């Protein structure tokens, strides 16, 4: 059984993101085990939020489709509980703090631990606000994933020192979404982090092609791809599974 403690032992990790409930939860349930089989080491399951301020248009639209389809946090928990035993990848939830806070932090994190979700990724909880979640996360053995960004500078090591699970390294300024090139010096940022932590560093934001993934994998322990996958799901809807599988295979092959 793969969890976040061994997900980075299989060469460079491929971390796939999708929005739960896009286009419906039944499709998400079929996708998750297939994405794992195709080579994803970690899957970030996005719980849709009405106002995803860290997302670009592609994931914003996916959130709107999922919410319009009647997706709720409880329905996502139930779906994940069913598929988790057949899903050979570490699972994480990616959502916004209000979704967790209003559900009840303890109720939410406890449920994660019960159904085999090993981490939460919450882009609007920075280092200074982590105690909103970390005491409860520690209690239930669920990792709270920390972010570093190109603007973090002197904050990199402060954040990296306490990072658990993996360190989410934001490749470029702005919101999520496909970018034609990544101009930030991600390597330098990761080198700084590596001075103070053994926690794996994964790069996300803007990666879509096998070539980009390969380059980013050279300087990190894994790559995170969201919008490119969500785009395929948007294009093929309920019939997206084989297309997503092919894409994930090509990406994992590129970074092997």
């Amino acid at each position: 059984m793969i969890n976040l403690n061994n997900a980075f032992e299989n060469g460079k990790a491929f971390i796939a993101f999708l929005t739960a409930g896009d286009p419906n939860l039944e499709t998400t349930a079929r996708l998750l085990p297939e994405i794992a089989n195709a080579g994803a080491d970690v899957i970030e399951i996005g719980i849709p939020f009405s106002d995803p301020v860290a997302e670009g248009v592609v994931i914003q639209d996916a959130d709107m489709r999922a919410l319009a389809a009647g997706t709720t946090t409880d329905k996502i928990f139930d779906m994940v509980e069913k598929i988790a035993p057949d899903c050979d990848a570490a699972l994480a939830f990616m959502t916004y703090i209000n979704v967790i806070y209003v559900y009840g932090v303890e109720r939410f994190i406890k449920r994660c631990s019960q159904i085999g979700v090993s981490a939460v990724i919450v882009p609007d909880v920075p280092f200074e606000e982590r105690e909103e979640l970390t005491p409860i996360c520690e209690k239930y053995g669920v990792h709270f994933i920390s972010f570093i960004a190109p603007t973090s500078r002197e904050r990199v090591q402060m954040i990296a020192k306490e990072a658990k699970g993996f360190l989410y390294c934001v490749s470029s300024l702005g919101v999520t979404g496909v970018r034609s090139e990544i101009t930030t010096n991600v390597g330098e940022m990761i080198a700084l982090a590596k001075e103070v932590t053994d926690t794996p560093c994964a790069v996300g934001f803007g990666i879509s092609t096998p070539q980009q993934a390969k380059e980013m994998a050279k300087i990190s322990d894994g790559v995170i791809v969201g919008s490119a996958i969500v785009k395929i799901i948007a294009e093929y809807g309920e019939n997206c599974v084989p297309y997503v599988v092919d894409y994930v295979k090509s990406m994992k092959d590129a970074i092997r």
Partner: protein
Amino acid sequence: MSKGKFGIHGGQFIPETLMNAVIELEKAYDYYKNDPQFIEEVKTLMREYAGRPSLLYYAEKMTKDLGGAKIYLKREDLNHTGSHKINNCLGQILLAKKMGKKRVIAETGAGQHGVATATVAALLGMECDIYMGKVDTERQALNCYRMELLGARVHPVTTGTQTLKDAVNEALREWTTRVEDTHYVLGSVMGPHPFPTIVRDFQSVIGKEVKEEMLKKEGRLPDICMACVGGGSNAMGLFYDFIEDKEVQLIGCEAAGKGVDTEENAATVANGGLGIFHGMKSYFIQDEYGQIAPVYSISAGLDYPGVGPEHANLYDTGRASYVPVTDDEAVAAFEYLSRTEGIIPAIESSHAVAHCMKIAPKMDKDKIIVVCLSGRGDKDVAAIARYRGVQIYD
């Protein structure tokens, strides 16, 4: 450590990409707020450019007509650009310039904050981009053109409910994309620390002037201070200097749209629950899963599903109370003040006027109410005509 707390509210719930920007802003503000030269520059701009102090006007006809408490109107509508928003913009954009920023961005609902931002950006020679919900660009078309005249680019926001909340989302997204040379001029006492404090401080000139003028005119403090509340900047500006004066009652008037019990309202304190959104812990109108709910008000400036964290704390501690006012009541007040005093108030401010009309008649004649007239109503004339079924060309 979490910073910028008002009781349990506030904080800095924003992506890591923006953290250094708010930390630098806090440092700069802590320095410049004590810098005599900066203080003098802001004061001079407020006086020479914005036209401060604004008048505290005794509404004698209204007082006599309602037959109860004495009513004073704090005339923020007479400021340059026509609302209280200029107070914050002068302070914040001057601060941004001192920080070496070249460009300002802002969200706007009714367009008042957008106009004030565009105005000060023109004055101080900054590049300016304004984010405004598409629905709002339609109901406030005049303000859009006004911003463009002032040299700003207006970006209609087509996501979500296409109103103020979505304009804030888009401004936040734009800020993460270009943060080094850009300052986000948040227009209300909301968002991540230090914005609620900075905006409140620059708006607190409202309450300070009221206090000074009231002591001159009446030799005592008012019994009630009231203002409309969306995010809550004019209310916070009016309330702040009176918080320690426990005998002064503070009342915020929220937009109840078609009714506080209907689906279509924006009465956050009445209908909201505790949440964390737009950088702050506070009250928000949302569903059981924390999805932010669509809100509605005839007033684009109050059409927001949250409230500033300091207001949330004033509510928790019982220091201020918050009351819902419907579209119908606000429109009636808009028309009443126009006819009675010859003052056309903003539809936002009309919410406070409406509540004043409800309570003043029941109060003794020796009681004093101050209503903050946060803005002028020229921008709303076409919308009110439509509301009344009158066809005019705007």
